[in-house]
């Protein structure tokens, strides 16, 4: 790089960076800001809330129950009428407490987390074995298999949605909740596997083969040497791949919307947020707070991956 940049060039560069950063980060700031505002403040273009409102977060995280305040005054009057039997009263109250209005955020969070974590784990486990085979073993059809897997990745997505759903209906998986979840899990695994294989395969190729050879002369079988040599040396890449798979599954909306449509309690967060968005009484602070909470695992994952990306674990083993 040319060190003698003029002041003007420096300023332009800084400006460009700021502009890009602003463009990227503004939506997140907006989300955060709105999630902390009171209803009267929503229209205010200022990003700083007039008065901080944490109710949305509290409600989502289950610290406060949906209160009776939401029951309109007329209905309350009605309830106070002594002619109403306790059963009738319960019926009326249940309408206002019905789950369709309460947003069980922790439940959705857990759904998404379990689904994403299992998809990422299985994908990672398969990718380790597959990538090892691609990078180390010589077998007939290796190139063809490798290419066709990448091909699946490129085709993937929307195009396959209808056929995949039809398949799972035919097989009978779509008939039950667990079947649908299984189909979704399989789809996430298949969607993430090509890139996982590719990333891990390339990484494995940077580990000198003679280290494994040394392990075999020291008495390790091939499988053992994967566990004793390859995996410990690939930790940064394994973390990266896991995070990649996890985030893909965490954010996935399309397939989840098709397979889980009818099973409300098994919705994932992207689905749940979508239903919040389209509901008639859009409560913006709640929507934005939910969005914010959905982002958190992604950010955590990202920071975790960054910490591990330093690499260089395999250095020093062989003479260059």
């Amino acid at each position, binding site marked *: 790089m040319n060190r003698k940049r003029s002041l003007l060039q420096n300023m332009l560069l800084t400006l460009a960076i700021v502009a890009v950063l602003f463009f990227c980060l503004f939506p997140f700031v907006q989300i955060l800001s709105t999630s902390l505002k009171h209803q009267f403040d929503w229209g205010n273009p200022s990003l700083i809330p007039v008065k901080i409102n944490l109710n949305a977060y509290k409600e989502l995280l289950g610290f406060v129950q949906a209160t009776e305040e939401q029951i309109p005054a007329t209905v309350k009057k009605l309830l106070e009428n002594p002619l109403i039997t306790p059963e009738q009263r319960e019926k009326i109250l249940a309408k206002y407490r019905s789950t369709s209005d309460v947003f069980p955020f922790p439940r959705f969070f857990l759904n998404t987390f379990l689904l994403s974590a299992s998809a990422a784990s299985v994908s990672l486990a398969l990718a380790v074995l597959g990538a090892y085979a691609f990078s180390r073993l010589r077998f007939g059809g290796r190139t063809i298999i490798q290419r066709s897997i990448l091909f699946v990745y490129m085709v993937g997505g929307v195009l396959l949605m209808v056929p995949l759903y039809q398949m799972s209906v035919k097989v009978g998986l779509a008939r039950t909740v667990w079947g649908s979840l299984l189909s979704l899990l399989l789809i996430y695994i298949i969607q993430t596997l090509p890139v996982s294989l590719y990333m891990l395969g390339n990484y494995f190729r940077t580990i000198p083969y003679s*280290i494994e050879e040394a392990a075999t002369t020291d008495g390790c079988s091939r499988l053992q040497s994967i566990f004793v040599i390859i995996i410990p040396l690939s930790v940064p890449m394994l973390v990266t791949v896991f995070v990649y798979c996890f985030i893909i599954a965490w954010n996935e909306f399309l397939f989840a919307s098709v397979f889980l449509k009818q099973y409300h309690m098994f919705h994932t967060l992207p689905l749940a947020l979508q239903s919040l968005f389209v509901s008639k009484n859009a409560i913006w602070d709640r929507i934005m707070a939910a969005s914010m909470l959905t982002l958190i695992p992604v950010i955590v994952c990202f920071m975790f991956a960054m910490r591990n990306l330093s690499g260089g674990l395999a250095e020093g083993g062989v003479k260059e």
Partner: protein
Amino acid sequence: MASVRFKNVDKWFGKTQVLHDINLDIKESEFVVLVGPSGCGKSTTLRLLAGLEDISAGDIYINDKIVNLLEPQHRNIAMVFQNYALYPHKNVQENIIFGLKRAKASRDLIESRLDKASKMLQLQEFLQRKPAQLSGGQRQRVAMGRAIVRDADVFLFDEPLSNLDAKLRNQMRYEIRRIHREYQTTSVYVTHDQVEAMTLGDRVVVMKDGYIEQVGTPMELYLQPKNIFVATFIGAPSMNILDATLYPEYIELEGQKLPLATNLVKTSVPSDGQKVKFGIRPDFFQDEQLISAGEALTTLPNVHIDIIEPLGYDRELNLKLGHQTLKARLDLRSTAREGDTINLCFDMRRAHIFDIETEKNLTI
């Protein structure tokens, strides 16, 4: 301890053949050294024995059992790799005891072996370091330690001392000899170093372009090389090879007729003015002024001295004989000076005559 046998082994990498019909018998607890120029197939030979490469033809036996298809982990061999191949994520201590641990050795055994090896290899200070924090020579010693602590049937060493300084190398050579004397483990050792080959090997195998040129004890190779390649490869400085003409009674060298020792050349060789190569080691020359009377030596008179290199323990003379150059190694008492001429004496029975075409030694 184990015996090892290569029987008609070929190795192909794709369309190139890198080993040709290798036949080699290694007895129990023998120490065999492989030498040869770079790329001649020494490492490949070791790797075939270790099971890290598949053989293309022939058989390899360990303890009279064919091991062609046996995986490396079941051959019970320990190998020092040419590129070290240490475990980068394990520290020195973990590297060294890795094999013992896998073999489920007792804690006491592991402790004592580690202690002994780290002392011998001068690695005590580095036991907790990772390979990346070591110098090349230190890494090489770790690689060495990892092999010698194990109870292997065969030790394979691929240039294990190449990265050490002269002093440490001598020390390690000595230690390797001691280990071998103590444990008597069958060993195959690859090296470029003359001295290592001569001092360590019970037998030495000279290889070239994937062929075994000669197998023998160090002295056999030194005194009776089968061909010009072995003659010049073994010994430093290497043997003088001079153009000469062979007659029944004498050999003519730059116009000088040197009488032949009896039985030097086999009778089957035609010797009526045929061009040959005459070989004599620099070590076998002596200054005529310094020999005692009564020794039956041949004299090569009036050799022009070009350059003298004093090496401390002796003096190496670069000489001119007609158009040919040769070297002589004379002892320190010699007063020869650059630009002088000198009369060199040698024992004709130590000389060799090689066929000019096949380069084979005609005197053995």
